[in-house]
C-alpha cells in the first residue's frame, strides 16, 4: 500500500463506521446486540496492515470492522453481516463482533477479551512450522493486556521466537474504566509497552494516529518476525471517537450510540474535544495535501468514492434476505 492507498483505506473505514452508527437512527432495529466501532483507530489499523503481505494472518477482537476493510473484504457483505442478512460475510451467524474472512487472512474474532491473543500466537506457531516466512498480526486493546492469556502468550511467543507482532491499540479505556485505574504501568506513569521487558522482547510505544509511523514501526517488527528473530509488542496510542459500543438494552428498548465515556462518565469534555482535533483521518489528509503528495481534488474524490461505496453497502445490506430460520442448525459442527 502506498500513502494514497493508505489514505483511501482510512477514509473507507471511517465512512463504513459512520454508516454503521447512522443505522441505529436511520433504520432502528436493524442492528441488534452489541457493535463496536474502529473510528479513531484507522491510522493504526491501516499502517499495520500495510506492512504485511498475502499469506500472512490477522487476528483481532470484537472491535473488528477496520481490519477486513484494509485487507480487501467486500463492504456490502460486511454491512449485511452487521444487519444479520443471509448475504452477510458470515451468513448472519456472527454479526458485528465476529467477522471472519479467511481468504484474506482474517481468521476470526473472539468477543471474550484477551482470548484471541493465544489464538494468534498459535497461528504464528503454524506459520513457523509451515516455514514459508509468513507472519501474524495480533490486534487487541489495552484492557486485554490484563488477561493471563496475554502474559502466557507473550512468554511462549518470545521463548519459541514465533513470527508474530502484538499490536496493542491503547485507547485509554476499557469500556468506562480508564487505563490508569486498571493498569500498573499506567498508574506508575509508564507506557504499557513496558510489559515487553518481562518477556525479553522489544516493546515500543508509538503515536497510532500517524499511519506512516505505524507503518515503519510495524514493518520493522514484521521483518524481524520473518527473519526468525521473534515477536515485538507495539503499543499504538489511539483514541476511539465513539462510545465503547451502542447502548445495552433488552429487546424492545431502542438501541442508540451514546457519547464517549470521557464525557458521560468522567465529564471530561476537554479530553474528548482534544481527541476530535487530533482525528487521524483529516490529519493524514492534511499531511498528504500540504506536502504535495496528494492534491485536494483527488482527496475529495477518494472521500466521494468511499461515500458511494458505503451507500451501496447499506443498500445491499438492507435489500439482503433474512436467513432461513432452520439454517440455525447448520455449521454447529464441521
Amino acid at each position, binding site marked *: 500500500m502506498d500513502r494514497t492507498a493508505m489514505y483511501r483505506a482510512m477514509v473507507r473505514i471511517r465512512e463504513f463506521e459512520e454508516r454503521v452508527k447512522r443505522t441505529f437512527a436511520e433504520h432502528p432495529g436493524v*442492528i*441488534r*446486540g*452489541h457493535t463496536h466501532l474502529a473510528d479513531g483507530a484507522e491510522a493504526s489499523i491501516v499502517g499495520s496492515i500495510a506492512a504485511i503481505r498475502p499469506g500472512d494472518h490477522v487476528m483481532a477482537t470484537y472491535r473488528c470492522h477496520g481490519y477486513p476493510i484494509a485487507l480487501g473484504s467486500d463492504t456490502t457483505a460486511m454491512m449485511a*453481516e452487521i444487519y*444479520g*442478512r*443471509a448475504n*452477510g460475510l458470515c451468513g*448472519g*451467524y*456472527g*454479526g*458485528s*463482533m*465476529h467477522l471472519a474472512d479467511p481468504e484474506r487472512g482474517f481468521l476470526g474474532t*473472539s*468477543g*471474550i*477479551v*484477551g*482470548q484471541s491473543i493465544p489464538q494468534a500466537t498459535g497461528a504464528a506457531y503454524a506459520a513457523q512450522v509451515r516455514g514459508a516466512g509468513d507472519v501474524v498480526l495480533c490486534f487487541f486493546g489495552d*484492557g*486485554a493486556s*490484563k*488477561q*493471563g*492469556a496475554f502474559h502466557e502468550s507473550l512468554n511462549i511467543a518470545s521463548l519459541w521466537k514465533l513470527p508474530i507482532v502484538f499490536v496493542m491499540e491503547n485507547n485509554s479505556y*476499557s*469500556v*468506562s*474504566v480508564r487505563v490508569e*485505574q*486498571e*493498569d500498573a504501568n499506567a498508574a506508575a506513569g509508564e507506557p504499557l509497552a513496558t510489559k515487553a521487558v518481562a518477556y525479553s522482547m522489544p516493546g515500543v510505544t508509538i503515536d497510532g494516529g500517524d499511519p506512516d509511523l505505524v507503518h515503519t514501526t510495524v514493518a520493522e517488527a514484521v521483518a524481524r518476525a520473518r527473519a526468525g528473530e521473534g515477536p515485538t509488542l507495539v503499543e499504538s496510542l489511539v483514541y476511539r471517537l465513539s462510545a465503547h459500543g451502542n447502548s445495552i*438494552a*433488552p*429487546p424492545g*428498548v431502542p438501541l442508540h450510540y451514546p457519547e464517549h465515556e470521557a464525557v458521560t*462518565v*468522567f*465529564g471530561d469534555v476537554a479530553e474528548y474535544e482534544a481527541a476530535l482535533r487530533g482525528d487521524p483521518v483529516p490529519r493524514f489528509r492534511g499531511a498528504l495535501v500540504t506536502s504535495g503528495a496528494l492534491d485536494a481534488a483527488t482527496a475529495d474524490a477518494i472521500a466521494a468514492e468511499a461515500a458511494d461505496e458505503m451507500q451501496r453497502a447499506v443498500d445491499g445490506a438492507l435489500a439482503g434476505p*433474512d*436467513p*432461513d*430460520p*432452520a*439454517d*440455525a*442448525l447448520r455449521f*454447529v459442527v464441521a
Partner: protein
Amino acid sequence: MAREITYIAAIMEGIHQEMARDDDVLLIGQSVGGSPEDPFVAAFGPDRVRVTPISETAEIGMAAGAALAGKRPVVDCTMAEFLLVAMDQVVNEANRFHYMSGGRVTAPLVLKAGYGFTAGWAGQHTGSIYGMFMGVPGLKVALPSTPADAKGLMATAIRDDNPVLFLHHYLLTLEAGDVPEGEHLVPFGQAAVVRPGHDVTLVATGWTVHRALEAAEELAAEGVSVEVIDPRTIAPLDVDTILASVERTGRLALVDQATKHASVSAIIAAEVAEAGFASLRAPIVQVTALDAPIAYAKPMEDFVLPDVGKIVAGVRRVVDATVSGHNTAAAR
C-alpha cells in the same frame, strides 16, 4: 412494605443492604466502583468497593482468598461467559476447600453474572450455561425469575458460607415487580409454585418462567389446568416440591433455555423418572433450546429458543399422550 422496582435494582438493593449489615461484605468487578459518582463507593468507601482490571482469574481467585481470610466478597462478573476464563477458580477451588480441609475452612463468596441475553449478542454472550455448574459439588447456583426473588436470593447468597453462583437473566433486567423494602431472604432449595394447577406440572427457570405462565394462561382457556413451578435455585434443587406436584397431576413438562443435554430440565426429568415413575401417566416432555450456539440473526436466534407456542405444544403433547395403548387424557 413492598413497592415496585426493577429486577436489576432489586439485586443491587440486596447487595447494598447486606453490605450495610455486615462490614465483611466486599464488592469488586469491572463494572462497579469505577465512576467518580459510584453509589456503592459513596456508601461503603473505596476499600470495600473496587473496580477491577479485566482479570477474571485474579478477580475470582482473589475472592476465594479473601473469603478464606474472613471476608464475604461479591464479584460482579458482568456476563456468565466471562467467568469461563476463570473456570478452575469457579468449579475446582473455593468450592472444594471446605471439603478438602475436613470442614476447617470456608469460602463464602458470591459470583454475580448475567446470562441468556438472546437479543442479538450472537455466539459468545448469550448462553444459558448453568448446566456447567449445577452438578459441581460445593457450588450453589441461584437463578431468580422475579425482582423479589432476585433480592431475596442475593441476600441469602451473601450470608451463605459457600461459593454461590448468582445468575440473573439479562432479558429480565428491566422487568419490574413488588419487592419488600427491608430485609428479605429467600431460602435456597425451596421451589416456588408460581401458578397452581391440577392437569400437568410445568417447571421453568429464569425468563422461561414468564413464558411458561403465558402458556399456562393460554392452555387454561382450553380447559387445561397447568401448575407452574420455579425451582429458584438449581443447586440445591428442590426435587420434593416437583415430585409432590407430579404425584397430583401425573404429567410433567419442562422448559429450559439451555440445550437439552446441558439443561436443568434433563436433570429434573431424570429425578422424576427415578423417584416419581409410579405417578407418571404420560412420558415427560422437555421444551429446551435446540442443540446449536445462538446465531446473530433474529430468525435463527428465534428458531432454536423455547417460546410460548412451543411450550403450549409441548404441554398439549403431555396431556394428549397415550401410555400403554391408553389415551390418558380420556381416562382422566
